[in-house]
């Protein structure tokens, strides 16, 4: 049986002594861990640094990994979550996501004013996302970037599917409020400038 055909838990069991097995786990999960960290830190440099630390820590402790009914990804996300939390704590100010790189202005050929409005909305929304508590940011990243279902997110975050559903609804309501606040703040600023 090849390592590629084994599932994550079977690979994790042998990964302590078998670097090829750990390599297979690495190939399967490096992109999603990188994405998670990238959206939590807001820049590629720190995302690379923290991703490297996640896998170094995972390699150090994979021999002690126990199958407790949660997916291996959940274990990796927990390591990533802890390292990102430490990273935020170590910084006096929270760096902002380089928004301009993310804002995918919809279709080429649209009127520039419409593009600007659409871009502004996305910028506001991303700012609002970045102001959310850690668990809500994690939920949105897993849902939209990783396209995970509520049940899968629940496994990763150690909550029930119902709890994730309810947290998601509350997060959307908070986002709506935040965007509204940011919009009104922007309009006030523009009016003052005029």
């Amino acid at each position, binding site marked *: 049986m090849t390592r590629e055909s084994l599932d994550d838990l079977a690979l994790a069991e042998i990964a302590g002594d078998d670097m090829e097995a750990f390599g297979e786990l*690495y190939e399967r999960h490096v992109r999603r861990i990188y994405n998670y960290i990238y959206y939590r830190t807001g820049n590629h440099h720190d995302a690379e640094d923290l*991703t490297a630390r996640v896998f170094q820590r995972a390699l150090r402790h994979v021999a002690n990994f126990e199958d407790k009914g949660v997916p291996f990804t959940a274990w990796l996300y927990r390591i990533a979550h802890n390292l990102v939390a430490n990273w935020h704590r170590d910084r006096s100010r929270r760096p902002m996501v380089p928004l301009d790189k993310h804002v995918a202005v919809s279709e080429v050929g649209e009127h520039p004013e419409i593009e600007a409005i659409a871009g502004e909305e*996305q910028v506001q929304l991303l700012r609002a*996302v970045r102001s959310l508590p850690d668990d809500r940011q994690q939920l949105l990243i897993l849902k*939209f970037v990783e396209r995970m279902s509520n049940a899968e997110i629940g496994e990763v975050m150690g909550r029930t599917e119902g709890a994730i559903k309810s947290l998601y609804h509350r997060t959307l309501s908070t986002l709506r409020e935040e965007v509204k606040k940011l919009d009104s703040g922007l309009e006030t600023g523009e009016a003052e400038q005029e």
Partner: protein
Amino acid sequence: MNRKQIESLLAEVLTPVEPNSQFVRSLRARLVTYQGGGALSPWMILAVLGTAILLAITSFGVLLRFIIGLISLFGLLDNRRQSKTGSRASV
């Protein structure tokens, strides 16, 4: 902005990013090196223990020789003193 609009905007904003392929490859290589040179390698532990025991034995041997040397020196000095005192007494 309603819920659907927020969801569609989130889907546009939170899109997967691809890490630099060179970073992915070099990190894998670093992990192999890291495991090979890991402090928790059983061979490494054995080598460190062996070296520590050898060093302890060697340093204990050196210490013993030093103590024996000191005792011999004191004995020699004491002998000389006694022989000098004995020759004076005989005169």
